[in-house]
């Protein structure tokens, strides 16, 4: 019967279906590959980082609350001198300050590029920001050293090396990242949102503030996270201007250090498997944990924002 013939035709796996399965598998394996790499690196850092505590028997308390960093030596009070607190505080401060400083600038610029003058934005600003991403950190570092540090020294006093200089350099470094990602998320806000808002009699500013930015806020948050991620992971440039002293920062112009700067500077000078080296990997682990924390925080904020909308 015709019915059964049709049923047969419809039940047969078509070439398209096989193609679909193949394509899906291909994409899945790409993702799995990335997952393997991610898990590999995380596991690698975790094992290396934990060995400070497991193998070298350093107590977590000494590590997280100590303020003297000289692995292998003892503090005057007899604890192991692996206090990572100054670096943790330093990383935290620099990242947060840089993000706070650059977010309004980045959003302003991105809004300008998408909402006010898209033409000029696409012609000038976008290529320039993309260009800046490619400037090696070491060049940023040297410009920071020859421009920002003297500026901070002359304006705010101190030696010029410190959190503030680090913040300024990072501000410029993460700006392109945040701008270009914010632009992407603003662009993905459908045009009819804007039209609807303008049609309701809202001013351009109200439209931007209440509609466009609100709609793009998850994307903007992601952009900021990525900016902070870059700030977190940045080493060479910050290292040159922050002073790189494992001291608790008492103000914004006193030399301080970040996890990455100590990590990068120390890696080549220590021997794999030694306490000195393990302690550096522990810093990397802290870094990982901190960026996880930031990430979750922002996701949390993002969710809250989504509800109140």
């Amino acid at each position: 019967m015709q019915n059964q013939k049709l049923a047969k035709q419809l039940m047969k796996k078509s070439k398209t279906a096989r193609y679909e399965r193949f394509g899906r598998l291909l994409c899945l394996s790409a993702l799995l590959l990335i997952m393997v790499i991610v898990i590999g690196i995380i596991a690698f850092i975790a094992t290396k980082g934990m060995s400070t505590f497991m193998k070298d028997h350093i107590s977590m308390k000494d590590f997280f609350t100590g303020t003297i960093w000289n692995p292998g030596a003892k503090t005057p009070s007899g604890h192991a001198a692996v206090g990572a607190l100054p670096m943790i505080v330093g990383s935290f401060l620099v990242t947060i300050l840089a993000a706070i400083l650059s977010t309004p600038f980045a959003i302003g610029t991105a809004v300008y590029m998408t909402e006010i003058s898209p033409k000029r934005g696409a012609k000038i600003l976008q290529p320039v920001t993309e260009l800046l991403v490619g400037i090696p950190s070491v060049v940023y570092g040297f410009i920071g050293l020859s421009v920002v540090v003297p500026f901070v020294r002359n304006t705010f006093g101190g030696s010029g090396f410190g959190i503030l200089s680090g913040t300024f350099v990072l501000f410029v470094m993460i700006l392109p990242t945040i701008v270009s990602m914010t632009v992407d998320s603003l662009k993905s806000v459908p045009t009819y949102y804007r039209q609807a808002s303008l049609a309701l009699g809202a001013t351009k500013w109200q439209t931007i503030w209440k509609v466009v930015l609100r709609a793009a806020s998850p994307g903007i948050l992601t952009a900021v996270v990525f900016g902070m991620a870059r700030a977190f992971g940045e080493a060479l440039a910050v290292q040159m201007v922050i002073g790189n002293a494992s001291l608790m920062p008492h103000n914004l112009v006193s030399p301080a250090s970040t996890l990455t700067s100590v990590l990068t500077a120390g890696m080549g000078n220590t021997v794999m498997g030694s306490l000195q080296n393990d302690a550096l990997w522990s810093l990397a682990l802290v870094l990982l944990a901190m960026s996880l924390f930031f990430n979750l925080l922002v996701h949390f904020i993002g969710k809250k924002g989504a509800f109140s909308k």
Partner: protein
Amino acid sequence: MQTIFDTQSNERFIYHFNPEENSIEMQTKDLEISYGKTLAMQHADIQFKKNTITALIGPSGSGKSTFLRALNRMNDDVATVKGQILYQGVNINQPGIDVYEVRRRIGMVFQRPNPFAKSIYDNVTFALQRRGVHNKKVLDEVVETTLKQAAVWDQVKDSLHKSALSLSGGQAQRVCIARVLAVKPDVLLLDEPASALDPVSTSQLEQTLRELKPNYTIIIVTHNMQQAARLSDYTVFFNLGEAIEYNKTRKIFTRPKIQLTDDYVSGNFG
């Protein structure tokens, strides 16, 4: 001819064709559609007659689009569909059915014209090319026939290799119809195909659909009751996830059996 009057509640009237009649192209049996835990459609038992135009009307959120999308299983990823969907007597809502073949035979045109970022020619032939048809002669012929069927050939025949994105809304929508016709479906599902078009384009589109009727079974979701009235042979009225009344269009618009339908078609709500 046989009609079933829902005796459980006096609020539904679903017209059913004579089972002996061999002209039912599609039919749903006790269809139930849900998004997650939200029930979007239930008790849908509708038959669609071959080579007719059936309009699905109802207020926003009544489930008419959801229903339409279930018919060629476009909802697979987002919704759970229970019940039977018979296409020429074969239940296509069962495991093992090749959805791609189903969708080829039951084509769909969407609310907003969505030409691909390709040339007009490629828009029309794309699906065929993906199915291994590469003979230029065949493809040329398909392009010409389908664009003519969709009544857009004269306007685009000189710019077949221009981007389809440059077309006006009405032209784009008819290219989208041609694109669907190119894979030779039996059923055409249209989801408010004219909502983004101006009156002139809309009436051209309607004319196109009338011309397609002898060869295709057309099911169209529309917001526009005049459109349903002038275009369709049968009309289903949906409300709150249920098919309330299904009858000949003439009857729906002149002598509806259900008060709710009357209220809706006379513009009292919706």
